[in-house]
């Protein structure tokens, strides 16, 4: 439905380089990346708010690169929501319906979105500033969707909300997608949001798409250290160092890859004397409970540090043990082989004290 075709944009001395994306009708594409990667610039260019130096944007095969915004039938929710501060909630929501034919259907359209987002009680509020964060979000969604746009562009829409409100809105938006069959183009730096809403994910760094594909492929099999680090896969280690520590199941070389990443939830800990034969001895430094799960911090021979994620029962068992020594094993299938980015790590390597 939406094709972004070799888009090049410059702002000051920041550039977007040859971005190609494709989004099918009713689908959801998430653009993920650290701040400053150019995500918002890409979104604004795809929407038509900025003119690209080169490249085209097509909707249903029609080139809309030069179409004025008011004729595009797309909706846009920016990070700050941009609710109109001089209008009541009702007038904010119906803002897009005052021209021509749409005006006659205002009543039903309003009823429809009001029911959809359950904001009946807010309709007569005169001052937008007194709404809570979640209420503002729902009003912004109602305003954007009242005219039944073809595509909804979202720029970090939930960044300022607390966990419970965000979780509610994510579920709202997810069920809306199914009801309305609307296409979503989502920019975010939050992994959970992308995971929850999108089928396709593109990861952007320094003005380039560095990974692009189905969500599960991108999240489970990143290809470079920079992307793996951005995806918050905590254990990223040089292959050689990993092997010399005793994990002999790690392949010595693999398509020119230099690093191996292992998710904390794929690391298995057992007590000192049990465990499979390929397990490696390690010292358990700390158990940090985090909601229903527990992070275990480990030190392996050669001062190698690893993190493991345990569920409640495993953590309780380890916590009871008198010794701080454990055996660590990692299934061969859960090793992710990574190459180092040609231009050095696009994402600065964290160093801890």
């Amino acid at each position, binding site marked *: 439905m939406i094709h972004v075709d070799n888009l090049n944009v410059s702002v000051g001395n920041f550039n977007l380089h040859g971005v190609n994306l494709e989004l099918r009708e009713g689908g959801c594409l998430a653009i993920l990346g650290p701040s400053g990667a150019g995500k918002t610039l890409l979104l604004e260019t795809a929407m038509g*708010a900025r003119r690209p130096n080169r490249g085209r944007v097509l909707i249903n095969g029609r080139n809309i690169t030069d179409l004025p915004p*008011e004729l595009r039938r797309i909706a846009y929710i920016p990070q700050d929501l*941009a609710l109109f501060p001089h209008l009541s909630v009702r007038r904010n929501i119906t803002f897009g319906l005052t021209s021509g034919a749409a005006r006659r259907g205002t009543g039903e359209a309003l009823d429809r979105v009001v029911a959809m987002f359950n904001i009946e009680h807010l309709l007569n509020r005169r001052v937008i500033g007194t709404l809570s964060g979640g209420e503002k979000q729902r009003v912004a969604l109602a305003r954007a969707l009242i005219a039944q746009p073809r595509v909804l562009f979202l720029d970090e829409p939930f960044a300022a909300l607390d966990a419970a409100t965000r979780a509610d809105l994510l579920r709202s938006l997810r069920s809306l997608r199914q009801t309305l069959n609307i296409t979503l183009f989502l920019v975010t730096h939050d992994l959970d949001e992308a995971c929850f809403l999108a089928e396709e994910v593109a990861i952007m760094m320094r003005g380039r798409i560095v990974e692009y594909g189905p969500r599960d492929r991108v999240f489970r099999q990143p290809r470079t250290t920079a992307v793996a680090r951005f995806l918050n896969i905590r254990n990223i280690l040089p292959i050689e160092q990993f092997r010399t520590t005793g994990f002999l199941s790690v392949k010595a070389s693999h398509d020119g890859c230099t690093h191996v990443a292992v998710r904390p939830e794929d690391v298995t800990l057992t007590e000192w004397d049990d465990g499979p034969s390929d397990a490696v001895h390690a010292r358990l430094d700390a158990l940090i409970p985090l909601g229903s799960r527990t992070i275990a911090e480990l030190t392996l021979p050669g001062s190698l540090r690893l993190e493991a994620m345990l569920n409640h029962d495993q953590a309780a068992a380890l916590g009871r043990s008198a010794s701080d020594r454990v055996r660590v094993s990692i299934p061969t299938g859960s090793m992710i082989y990574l190459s180092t980015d040609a231009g050095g790590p696009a994402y600065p390597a964290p160093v801890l004290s």
Partner: protein
Amino acid sequence: MALAGGVVGGMKLSRSLFALSLACGLGGAVSLVLMMLAAQIGFAGVRAPIAALGRPDIQHAIKLSLFCATIAAGLAMLVAIPSAYVLARYRFPGRILIDVLLDIPIIISPIAIGITLLLMFRSAPGSWVQEHLLRFVFEVPGIILAQFIIALALQIRVLKATFEEINPRLEQVARYLGCGPWAAMWRVTLPLARPGMVAALLLGWGRAIGDYGATVTIAGSVKGKTDTIPISIVLNWSAVRIEAAVALVMVLTSIALLVLLAVRLAAGGSRT
């Protein structure tokens, strides 16, 4: 502990000095203005000046000033709104140069503005305009032109700041909600700019009504014809009709106060 107490004591003194010097600065500035207001009332009370307001020549000055300043400030708004909008929203080569050019009438001496206008009407195209279209020199249109220029520059400055404070994403969202550029401006930008527009109109009007240098240079001080309030003040003062002059000074001061209060109210009203 005693030492620490000493340090705290020293710190307290230094902090008091800080507060004191801030208070002195502000107190000095405020009392200067208050002394000036007191001097006006202290000189002749309010009764004699109010009586002087009944004189026909003073009424003429007040009417002429209100007429000219209102037309000048109103016309200037029509030019100032699009100019300020362009300068606030678009980036184009030469923007900074234009910005500087448009600030000149704010900072330059009104005398220089007046003389420059006289020079303009002495030139060949200027003379042609004077002869075939409208006489400016020593006439009421000259007053309006001078005040127009003085109001315009100030209005552009105020409106530019106003438009810059309005989140441009509001207009962008309005466009995606189906508004053309006119509709987006009419339904979003201008309503949000209302306090700034009121401020620009009133401040420009206030500056126009108080102008002496530019007005007197191009329109002269023709008694009963181009004597605006400031010109009439000077005429009365030099003729040692002090009550009349003070009466008009008090009129100008009251106008300034009313304008400033109205601007505050407009700005405050938008915040509720």
